[in-house]
């Protein structure tokens, strides 16, 4: 790796000041993307700012009435390793255990997965489906941005010069709600999604009260398919309504052909995965396995 300086600020303010003074600085959370990119020369920097000594970025705070605040650098294992968090957000705990293997999950964070802004990021469709918000701090103060608005292109986000992602906030799970992320990979684990679908449903009297659906690896950014979820609102929980939403998700996908799969195959997967994810989320919402 080319030489750089290293700083480990202990407050958000200090991190912002360092970022503002060093426009080429890179933020280091778990390093499982950044260090690979620096070593390969895909990214260059004069200063690495390690954010893991900032308490807000390492927090995993769950309170049933407020929801979950997830520090942007909190490693994946802390989500599935926290009984209360895993019980309240089982789909999130599953996603945290899908990203890489055990060694990667010891370091990689959900916030880093989002900031790396890969279209295939496994955690992002689920965050979108769950209505998660990004808490961003910068020189001009802080702002909150919906996760679906955070990524703008492969590797690019709405973060402006001097800004950093502090935390993600997930609302408390509502009664009658359930979520699920499913991806297709040719292996059993340790792979990048060919396509993925994250959904959350809230059920009431055999009907969908609401639903949100997002897709991975079929567009330049994780893709929120608002219309597919909205089509379910007020409709009965039935195979034909689920199929309609799956069709809408498939139609919204904008995949490319690459080494992981053809565009046609990915589009097909969007329909299959959305349908199956909805069925799984419905089971969860009903308290079934």
């Amino acid at each position, binding site marked *: *790796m080319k*030489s750089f*300086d290293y700083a480990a600020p202990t407050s958000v303010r200090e991190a912002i000041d360092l970022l503002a003074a060093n426009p080429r600085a890179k933020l280091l959370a778990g390093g499982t993307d950044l260090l690979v990119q*620096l070593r390969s020369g895909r990214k260059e920097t004069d200063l690495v700012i390690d954010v893991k000594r900032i308490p807000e970025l390492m927090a995993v705070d769950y309170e049933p009435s407020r929801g979950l605040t997830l520090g942007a650098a909190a490693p994946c294992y802390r989500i599935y390793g926290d009984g209360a968090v895993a019980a309240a957000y089982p789909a999130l705990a599953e996603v945290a255990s899908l990203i890489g*293997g*055990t060694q990667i999950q010891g*370091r990689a964070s959900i916030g880093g997965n989002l900031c790396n802004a890969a279209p295939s990021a496994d955690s992002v469709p689920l965050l979108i489906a769950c209505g998660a918000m990004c808490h961003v701090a910068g020189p001009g103060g802080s702002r909150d941005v919906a996760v679906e608005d955070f990524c703008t292109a492969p590797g690019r986000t709405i973060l402006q010069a001097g800004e950093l992602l502090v935390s993600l906030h997930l609302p408390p799970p509502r009664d009658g709600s359930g979520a699920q992320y499913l991806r297709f990979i040719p292996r059993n684990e340790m792979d990048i999604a060919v396509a993925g679908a994250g959904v959350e449903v809230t059920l009431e009297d055999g009907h969908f009260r609401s639903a949100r659906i997002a897709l991975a690896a079929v567009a330049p950014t994780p893709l929120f398919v608002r219309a597919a979820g909205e089509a379910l609102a007020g409709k009965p929980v039935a195979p034909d309504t689920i199929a309609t939403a799956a069709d809408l998700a498939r139609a919204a996908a904008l995949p490319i052909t690459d080494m992981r799969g053809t565009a046609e195959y990915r589009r097909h997967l969007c329909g299959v995965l959305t349908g199956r994810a909805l069925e799984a989320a419905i089971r969860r919402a009903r308290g079934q396995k």
Partner: protein
Amino acid sequence: MSSHAKVQIHTTINGEERDFLCEPRQSLLECLRDVLGLTGAKEGCNDGNCGACTVILDGRIVASCLVLGVEAEGATITTIEGIACGSRLHPLQTAFLENAALQCGVCTPGFIVAAKALLDREPHPTEEQIRLWLANNLCRCTGYDKIVRAVQQAAATQEVKA
């Protein structure tokens, strides 16, 4: 020569306090191998896929090629050199030998360190738990069945001793 000054890092490695100097760009793996002479952790892929450089960092296994040495300030680290107790092998090491769970041996330190972290956490893992836990460790000559059997035997041996 680099203009980026070396930093002094204080750690506890295999139960001993160890200070070392490193450049910020050096990975923990480079620091262990090239600065501290602990060459048990291996460089395989150097991008986090193969697990040959696995060490235990503050209780969690990590790929030491994806950790900067400077990040280890204040950390407690266990490497393969710290797994045996003096000349007495750890049950995992014995089980790897008895089950011929290695050929070239490059992946072995990573497998044993990772498996130790599993057994410390879960003394009676199922085969599926073992395979999932070790999914980030690649072997390109022995194959995984013997490795999984060795971990199962070590778990059983530990049980008898306990």
